[in-house]
């Protein structure tokens, strides 16, 4: 295994490199993400057909499902970044994990809130201790626990290690959330799209949903990069490259 082949990986360990990369990528994610979100919102709310049983109430799917998918996706990302941070002692990886945590918590909260609003008329209750709902609530607490633990230490490195360990072992909850509807009798319906076999949803409803999910992902990537930049500046506030950002390369104020 040549040392050369790992250079691309090691460059991600360099905060100024990642900071600059984020600057170049942000506009793309922002423009494409907003375009997808706007298209899918209009398409899903105005043009997709109503459901045969729920009528227009089903349109909550366009907010709820992408948020729920993303809440799991972000957690896996957080756990991977935490593991890389722990094993390779990579500071940027820890910064990625703590940058992702509040965003993941927000999407988890959104999935719980929209599910609750939909559940009241459709199921007949705002909340119930169903396996899917309970495991998703635990996910929210994991995110919050991660943030609190990370910020609870005077020394940033101790905080990073403690929270990363919680982040890594918490990943056990992700398959539990996904399969909870298959493993136990639950009130929440089983998977419509993420399953073996064809999705059991009309194509006219599915396409705007997938566009919306893509929009959520891009929107998340945009916010993540901005959060990461802020986190890197905070952590590297005494480094030469951050000072150079303010003063310019020559040492004069830009």
């Amino acid at each position, binding site marked *: 295994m040549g040392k050369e082949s790992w250079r691309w990986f090691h460059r991600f360990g360099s905060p100024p490199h990642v900071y600059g990369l984020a600057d170049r990528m942000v506009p793309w994610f922002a423009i494409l993400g907003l375009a997808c979100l706007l298209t899918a919102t209009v398409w899903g709310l105005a043009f997709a*057909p*109503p*459901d*045969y*049983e*729920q009528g227009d*109430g*089903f349109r909550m*799917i366009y907010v709820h499902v992408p948020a729920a998918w993303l809440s799991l996706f972000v957690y896996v990302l957080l756990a991977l970044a935490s*593991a890389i941070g*722990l*094993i*390779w002692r990579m500071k940027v990886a820890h910064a990625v994990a703590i940058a992702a945590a509040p965003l993941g918590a927000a999407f988890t909260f959104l999935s719980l809130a929209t599910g609750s609003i939909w559940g009241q*008329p*459709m*199921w*007949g*209750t705002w909340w*119930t*201790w*169903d*396996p899917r709902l309970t495991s998703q609530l635990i996910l929210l607490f994991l995110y919050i626990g991660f943030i609190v633990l990370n910020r609870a230490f005077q020394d940033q490195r101790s905080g990073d290690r403690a929270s990363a*360990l919680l982040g*890594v*072992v918490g*990943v*056990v*909850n992700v398959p*539990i959330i996904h399969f909870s509807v298959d493993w*136990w*009798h*639950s*009130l929440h*319906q*089983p*998977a*419509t799209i993420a399953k073996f076999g064809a999705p*059991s*949803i*009309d194509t*006219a*409803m599915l396409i705007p949903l997938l566009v919306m999910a893509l929009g959520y992902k891009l929107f998340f990537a945009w916010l993540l990069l901005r959060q990461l930049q802020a986190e890197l500046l905070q952590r590297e506030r005494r480094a030469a490259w951050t000072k150079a950002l303010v003063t310019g390369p020559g040492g004069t104020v830009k």
Partner: protein
Amino acid sequence: MTPRRKRMVLVLSAVAGVAIAATLGLKAFQENILYYYSPTQIASGEITFDDRRIRVGGLVVDGSVQREMGELGVVFDVTDELESVTVAYDGILPNLFREGQGIIAHGRFDDDGIFIADQILAKHDENYMAPEVKESLREAEWQRRQRELREQQEYSGPGEDY
């Protein structure tokens, strides 16, 4: 073993440990996590309820829903295609409640074996369809049944002449 390799093993074993603990924990509490019982589980007598509040889930039997005039009270049967349970409920039913729909009733059995529910939740399935699609599916189903009926008549028809 390099320090990095050591940390990798530590992280992986932490995850494996928590995964095993979670699996055992969930297995141990299987019955408590179970959100509802099916009518078959109740009929088999495998669970002792005593006076406990439980949830019963299944499909509302077609034609079994009886409403009391001018009241919210409703009585219906819930089935899992094998066994059924009679449920009585006095309150507002959720939007998705109808015959043939999956529901979950929360309450307890009275002395006559009738399930007195204090909460009814409608279970939504994973299928999303436009109304026209549902209509054409219903149409296809009706035609299939008609054909079956005709085939049965043709099959048994001449038999009775002998």
